[in-house]
């Protein structure tokens, strides 16, 4: 392979490029810090709330799953999912985990499938010891309703999360408002 013989300088440059690429990938995608932990927790909650079309299984099954869903919230959580293009607003104030879960399961049959992608996740720590965080992001929810209508709605999500004693980040409040609305 005479054609690919490189000088020592070029090998060094190539190695530097590869190493810096690996470092960048690790730094932006695999590095674990508090902000990464919050983002990961947010993505876990969203993945749990998603719903696959019938026939390919559900993300949520049974009481164990419901219990796990409840684990994403503090003992008292404020939730406001407001003003979508269909004009519905869901509000829960100081809701217990059981109330949050039962509300979710009441709404869940209205949709056949739900997929949520998060973007622009901004985490700002508000607690003295990095034990509280204000999270803002945009979420794109796509799916189909029970009637077979497809939907695609963008929401601005703002959440307050706190780090509880067991080391898990949980939602203290969760608010979602449309990216675009007449209000």
């Amino acid at each position, binding site marked *: 392979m005479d054609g690919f013989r490189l000088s020592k300088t070029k090998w060094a440059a190539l190695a530097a490029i590869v190493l810096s690429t690996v470092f960048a990938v690790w730094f932006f995608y695999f590095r674990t810090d508090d902000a990464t932990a919050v983002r990961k927790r947010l993505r876990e909650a969203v993945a749990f709330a998603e719903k696959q079309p019938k026939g390919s299984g559900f993300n949520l099954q049974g009481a164990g799953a419901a219990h796990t869903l409840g684990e994403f919230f503090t003992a008292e959580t404020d939730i406001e999912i407001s003003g979508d293009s269909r004009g519905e607003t869901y509000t829960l104030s100081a809701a217990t985990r059981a109330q949050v879960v039962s509300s979710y399961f009441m709404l869940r049959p209205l949709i056949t499938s739900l997929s949520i992608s998060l*973007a622009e996740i901004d985490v700002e720590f508000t607690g003295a010891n990095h034990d509280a965080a204000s999270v803002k992001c945009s*979420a794109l929810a796509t799916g189909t309703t029970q009637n077979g209508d497809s939907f695609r709605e963008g929401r601005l999500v703002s959440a307050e999360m706190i780090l509880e004693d067991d080391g898990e980040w949980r939602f203290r409040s969760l608010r979602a408002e449309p990216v*675009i609305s007449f209000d």
Partner: protein
Amino acid sequence: MTTPNETPNEESSTFVRPPKHRDWRIVCIRIGIIAAATVLICLFVFRPMVINGASMMPTYSSRGFTFAFLPYFSLYDPQRQQIVILSHAGFNTFLLKRVLAFPGETVEIRNGVLYVNGRKLDEPYVKYGCNWNLNRCEVPQGKIFVLGDNRSMPMREHMGGMIDRSRLAGVPVW
């Protein structure tokens, strides 16, 4: 003209070409540079977009294709009635809308007619009439008021209204 027994002079040797030999390293590097430049241009300058939805009909059909010129709003401010591309959520889904009002202005819709600052806005691009009504409201700071050209559907099914100005992503090329 040299005969076979004569030694070619120096001048004639400048016309001798090396044997054709394709250097695959150079070819690969060129292909790589072209591919990288194409990806960068498509990501950050002229982003290809498939139009999915009927909210801008008849100006744009529901299965159209265009390119978004993304640096536009780094260079210019949005103009009234200009068609713009807005970031919906993230950088994968965008909205194609028309800018109709700016911060501090009031908007009102009466029986499908749009009024900005109390004056009727001439909208020749709206071909399908509607009976929408929206109470007079002021566009907040940091937001713009946008609508699609197709207002034949019920207002609550139309994705329009106030949106953060920071979501302006670019303009369609055609």
